């Protein structure tokens, strides 16, 4: 915040106004009180209120994460069910082999490979940025323009790949385990249709643990988005955070970390509530076990 030519007195004065001379516990108390009111101070680098910066960048990250989570959940579940049921098929083997790649390749390598392939060689998708965005007043969205939609494809696929492969393997393992259980065997013995056994009896049970994992993973997606946003120059919070790290812009970093922690807690809370609706064993605990 200060230049080379700033005098020592001016430096001392700035320290005083920023409250850097107070003892640590007073600084911390002040931070907590302000943070609880959504006030994170002023960015050292950009000289603007941090909360304003976060709100500005939030839509970009949220749109990216939501799209990635949808891709990961939908395709992960579908492919997982497929490989769980057709255990020995040729296609299953290929899906599993590719999913191994997804687990083991780091996000930035995949991102750079995608940019090279789709932006540089084929030239069909943009390699960076959000494209044109429409400002709705409280929210800026890229969903309403073609260039915005095109821009989100590469980053969201890159970001979702790791979670998707994870979900494939989880759903596959769950399906295989459940298809071995007694109640599936009993359903077969009653002559229930194979389709119903797989998609009604087995899948419903198999999705219960997936919801837990998926909830935690959405949090992880936001965290991972730092790397993806950097690779694709995506103007979201992760990108903001990386820039803040380079300039030791502590107000932005602390605000970002508090925000991530808040999102994690909220998601886990929502997942716990969801359990109540999905699993009858939890729902009716109060009045059960009679007769």
């Amino acid at each position, binding site marked *: 915040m200060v230049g080379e030519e700033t005098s020592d007195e001016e430096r001392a004065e700035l320290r005083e106004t920023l409250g850097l001379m107070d003892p640590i516990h007073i600084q911390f108390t002040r931070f907590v009180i302000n943070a609880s009111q959504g006030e994170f101070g002023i960015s050292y680098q950009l000289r603007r209120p941090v909360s304003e910066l976060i709100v500005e960048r939030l839509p970009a990250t949220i749109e990216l994460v939501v799209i990635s989570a949808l891709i990961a959940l939908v395709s992960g579940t579908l492919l997982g069910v497929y490989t769980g049921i057709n255990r020995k098929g040729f296609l299953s083997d290929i899906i599993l082999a590719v999913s191994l790649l997804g687990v083991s390749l780091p996000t930035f390598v995949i991102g750079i490979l995608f940019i090279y392939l789709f932006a540089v060689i084929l030239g069909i998708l943009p390699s960076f940025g959000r494209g044109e965005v429409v400002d709705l007043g409280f929210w800026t969205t890229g969903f309403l323009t073609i260039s915005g939609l095109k821009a989100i494809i590469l980053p969201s696929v890159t970001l979702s790949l790791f979670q998707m492969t994870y979900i494939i393997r989880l759903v596959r393992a769950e399906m295989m385990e459940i298809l071995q259980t007694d109640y599936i065997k009993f359903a077969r*013995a*009653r002559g229930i*249709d194979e389709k*119903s056994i797989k998609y009604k009896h087995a899948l419903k*049970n198999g999705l*219960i643990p997936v919801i837990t994992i998926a909830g935690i993973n959405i949090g992880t997606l936001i965290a991972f988005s730092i790397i993806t946003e950097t690779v694709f120059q995506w103007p979201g919070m992760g990108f903001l955070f990386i820039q803040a790290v380079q300039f030791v812009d502590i107000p932005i970093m602390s605000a970002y970390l508090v925000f991530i922690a808040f999102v994690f807690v909220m998601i886990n809370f929502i997942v716990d509530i969801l359990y109540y609706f999905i699993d009858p064993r939890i729902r009716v605990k109060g009045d059960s076990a009679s007769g």
Partner: protein
Amino acid sequence: MSFLKINNLSVDYQMRKETVYAAKNVNIEVNKGEILGLVGESGSGKSTVGNAIINLIDEPGKVSGGSVVLGDLNIHENSESIVKYRGNKIGLIFQDPQTSLNPILTIGEQLIETIQTHLKLSKEEAKNKSVNLLKEVGIKDAEKRFDNYPHQFSGGMRQRVVISLALCCEPELLIADEPTTALDVSIQSQILELIKKLTKERNLAVILITHDMGVIAETTDRVAVMKSGDLVEVGITKDILTNPQKNYTKSLVSSVPPTNKKISRFVIIDNENKDNKLNNIKILNRWQKREIKIQDLVQVKNLSKSFDDNFFSESSKNSVMAVNDVSFEIKEGETFGLVGESGSGKSTIAKIIVNLFKPSSGDIFFDEVCITKIKQKSELMKFRKQIQMIFQDPYSSLNSRLKVKDIITEPIKLHNPNISNSDLNSYIFDLLESVELNQKSADRYPHEFSGGQRQRISIARALATQPRLLVCDEPTSALDVSIQAQILNLLKDLQEQLNLTILFISHDLPVVRQMCDRIGVLKDGKLCEVTNTEVLFVKPHHEYTKELLRLMPKIESIYE
């Protein structure tokens, strides 16, 4: 003309190197209105036959030959056609009602789906049919319970639901695979009565697969005995049980603990064990044999244990008393039995005596010292050495990563750290031979042994510290009946030679009668009565004991 004819049915498992037969050329016939028992020990192929009838064999097994004729339909013509007979012509009931029902569908949904798969009924008609069926199998408030999930039913009620599911499309053949093995004796008798009633009312042909000779004797009209995939003998139940022709059947029948008298040893008709008398107790020469004084070795006084005292609600209203004010004594040198159904608190008492649980209130005296009040660890060790435990499940009670040698060394070294290596080795060998295992066993891992052999290792481990009291918590419940007979014989011999005192916990009344001198009957954490074994079985005092004895499946009932 029989209703069901199984001709030369074979099931094999294609392994990488060889083909294993799970069933070989089995011929069985069942008439309508008749219950056929299919009996055998684990691995005999009895469940395989049951599953093979509807072609429900898990990979890599398959039905490799033979035919199944139902009425005049050959249902094994091709593997696709069999599917339409499942549930429709043939109903199947599995062993464990806890796992047979889909936990996230209501029982109504499961019933309606099954009915609509086979019968052309509207949802409303299917529901009416289901409710009537639930009433028929003895579920009260059927209309209300129709929308309940499986976990809202108790074990016995769930098995009734399972039966209603198996019967909802009016099959003519019912296959019940160990339908009562996971249930308590009082529920078992209700379920068996229900199956008998339905057999008569609906003129069903029933195959009842079980390992329990008492159930066979009380329920079935004819019985088929299987061993290692082969059919040994088929005949009228009474003939087979009273006058078996084949050696295997003879040994199976003689291994069953009689309910009406006490025998000194089980007769074992087995080639390996000809002399049938254990006189090779090698640890005797190093055993500090104690004279049996006439005294109470263990005194349990007003023992209570509740499992609900957690941090926030110390004495909440809905706390469950697992053990409620129980007092009894175990005399030195005797075998004291504790019997009761599941949840009666018998295992909890055992764990408090060996000091794995702390009681909520009450005391236990061992050799006139109160062991529940000992605070010092070194003091407690003296008693731990004298009290050892044998657990129910021989598969999970041995550390699978340790060699047998190391498993047995552990307790020896703990109480005698200075023992020399050569002495340790010979002690381990002596222990192993005392439980009829050879010296080579010492260098092997637990998974290389069968269930019965593992239980012998458990016994050797328990004996390693030269205990005075042996606590056996259902030591033979996981074992086949012939193995059970061997283990019980071994325990009897060891007790006689080593002057052991045994606390024997079991739900199996015939076994308890053979093993115990005195018996305590537990119900819901309370002790109903404590008395001598013979008095208990001949003239039970408490109503609950009478009830238990009446419901116990008796192999002798065949003579009535």
